[in-house]
């Protein structure tokens, strides 16, 4: 252990008799990790909704992510790698954001009574954020592990079988709602926290930012839920052929 750490932990100051810069770095990293996760989610949910355009679209997009344009037939390993990278970011973000959770009985009681009486939107939004963040600990972990360990099982039939026959729909429903709400609240927080859209009239722009984010959240919930329902429907229709994989219409034509 470094002597500097010991000195700082006892005196509260670094050996230069200064405050540590670590809290500043952590605050920034919390925002940056949240921002990257948010960017990932914004694209991920759009790609995942390709099922709304039909099985063929979802299939070719999956294959594109498996880099079938360079590797013959595509390699699911790429998906595994992506899942590992996101998982690292996810754990890192959760570790940093965890510092903000209310801990003791007293803190929970004070937050609860205060928020109930105050009826203040942004306070409630933060409670929504820590609640969904807590849910994501578990839901996100399940999903990420599945993608890491079974990257080959992504596709119009494989995903639908997982969602319908393997009963993963309940998990996905909770995951979808919590991740969309958490990301929406998080991006709003980033805007406010760093004063990104303050402009000439920060008070008006705060309302504007909130309204835009609300609209985007509704849009994402809509496409997300609609896609989930679509996977359910495909899974139901495919239940007797559980395990069978989708073949591209072009491949089928080629074979015949």
């Amino acid at each position: 252990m470094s002597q500097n750490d010991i000195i700082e932990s006892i005196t509260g100051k670094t050996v230069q008799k200064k405050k540590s810069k670590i809290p500043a770095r952590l605050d920034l990293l919390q925002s940056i990790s949240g921002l990257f996760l948010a960017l990932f989610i914004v694209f991920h949910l759009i790609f995942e909704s390709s099922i709304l355009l039909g099985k063929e679209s979802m299939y070719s997009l999956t294959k594109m992510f498996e880099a079938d344009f360079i590797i013959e037939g595509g390699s699911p390993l790429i998906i595994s790698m992506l899942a590992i990278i996101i998982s690292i970011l996810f754990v890192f973000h959760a570790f940093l954001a965890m510092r903000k959770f209310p801990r003791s009985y007293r803190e929970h009681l004070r937050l609860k009574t205060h928020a109930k009486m105050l009826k203040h939107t942004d306070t409630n939004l933060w409670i929504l954020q820590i609640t969904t963040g807590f849910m994501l600990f578990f839901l996100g972990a399940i999903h990420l592990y599945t993608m890491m360990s079974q990257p080959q099982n992504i596709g119009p039939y494989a995903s639908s079988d997982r969602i319908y026959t393997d009963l993963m729909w309940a998990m996905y429903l909770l995951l979808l709602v919590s991740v969309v709400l958490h990301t929406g609240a998080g991006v709003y927080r980033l805007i406010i926290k760093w004063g990104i859209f303050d402009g000439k009239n920060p008070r008006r722009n705060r309302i504007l930012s909130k309204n835009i984010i609300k609209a985007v959240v509704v849009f994402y919930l809509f496409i997300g839920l609609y896609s989930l329902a679509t996977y359910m429907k495909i899974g139901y229709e495919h239940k007797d052929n559980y395990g069978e994989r989708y073949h591209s219409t072009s491949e089928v034509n080629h074979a015949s």
Partner: protein
Amino acid sequence: MSREITITALKYNPSDADSQPTFETYTLEETPGMTLYIALTKIKATIDHDLSSDFVCRAGICGACGMVVNGKPSLACKTLTSSFPEGKIDLLPLPTFPLIKDLSVDTGSWMQKMNIRVNSWIVANEPTDISKIEKRISPDVADEVFELDRCIECGLCVASCSTSLMKEDFVGAVGLSRIARFSIDPYDSRTDEDFYELIGDDDGIFGCMSLLACEDHCPKELPLQTKIAYMRRKMVMV
């Protein structure tokens, strides 16, 4: 047309071992233009001589009369009873500050500690020569500084902030806005490094979770949202 209003207040004296916290309800006739200050004075004069609450200026200037009104931290002297259509008003003392009795809290010692902690005064490198005219500063900068000087230390920003409620050592919006005030002031020679020593930790600027209840409850409408973000941007770059 006057109506009857009911006011419920928490009554408790922490320094009296026999005192039991209770809610007391008072019914009184509303008069035109009645503020909560007037209503409480009337209650104290005619119904309950023992009820405590603080006032000095009665005009939203001194910051002494903060209390929680129907869940919202507010200045009693600036709150009209007519703004509650149902005529029911619940009063609580401001949280986070030491309770003196009933609705009366000690914001003074809290503010004093905060001011000392954030070194809320001008620090100049050169001695001031009062025989010379001060150096000029631009009106825009002066406005920005004076805008923050309008703070009356009422503590409503602290009492409305969930972080302040949960973390007793959190410096609060008022403390962060004090730092912003001196950081903007060209007469102050302190650098960002110096300010970092005062608020660069999780009880300072990095403890703020941007819930903006401070901004939304400040009776002087100080630009807390932008000034806290401004300090955060500065402190994170140090």
